[in-house]
């Protein structure tokens, strides 16, 4: 399986503070995703990158969320200022596999608690 490292694994902040998450996939995967998973729900796509460019950010709350992908490899997701409803697990995924079939591989996620 493709490797996707995420950090930090856990973060607790107070509302109105800022937070950043990092995603470090092994190189060679053009497509990268950030998902938000609220407890008890399925993951929701926040943003999809193709290399350095954004393919879909229609569900990203752009007034407080931002994301970038550096040199088509690593990516960061930032929330500023955080709200209580941002408490969730933030998942990074890459589209990979030898045949580039569209199969997704996820990192372990970053769990955010906003107090």
């Amino acid at each position, binding site marked *: 399986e493709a490797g996707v490292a995420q950090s930090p694994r856990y973060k607790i902040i107070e509302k109105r503070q800022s937070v950043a998450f990092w995603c470090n996939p092994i190189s060679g995967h053009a497509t990268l995703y950030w998902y938000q*998973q609220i407890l008890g729900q*399925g*993951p929701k796509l926040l943003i999809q990158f193709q290399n350095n460019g954004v393919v879909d950010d229609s569900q990203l709350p752009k007034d407080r969320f931002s994301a970038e992908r550096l040199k088509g490899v690593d990516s960061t997701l930032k929330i500023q200022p955080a709200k209580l409803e941002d408490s969730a697990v933030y998942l990074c995924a890459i589209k990979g*596999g030898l045949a580039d*079939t*569209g199969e*997704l591989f996820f990192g372990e*996620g970053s769990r955010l608690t906003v107090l």
Partner: protein
Amino acid sequence: GIQVEQSPPDLILQEGANSTLRCNFSDSVNNLQWFHQNPWGQLINLFYIPSGTKQNGRLSATTVATERYSLLYISSSQTTDSGVYFCRGGSNYKLTFGKGTLLTVNP
């Protein structure tokens, strides 16, 4: 976007029992994947199965794309199978996760 309905939402089994989980899609699919989310929250790939049938040990999956559904079979369930099972499907760039099936396998 495409709607994904998973059933049942919750399932409780005794160890050793078999089960079938289902995903229905509101539109055609050419990309479908099943995941198991373990108690620590990581999504583990089970199958990439846009059509046909695949088997991996006690698990198998079947997708009938023309009828817009996919099934995940778990045989001889074990306590380690507990967790949430998600399907993600759609076509091209429009893919969506279902809400999941929470499976509890009791010893």
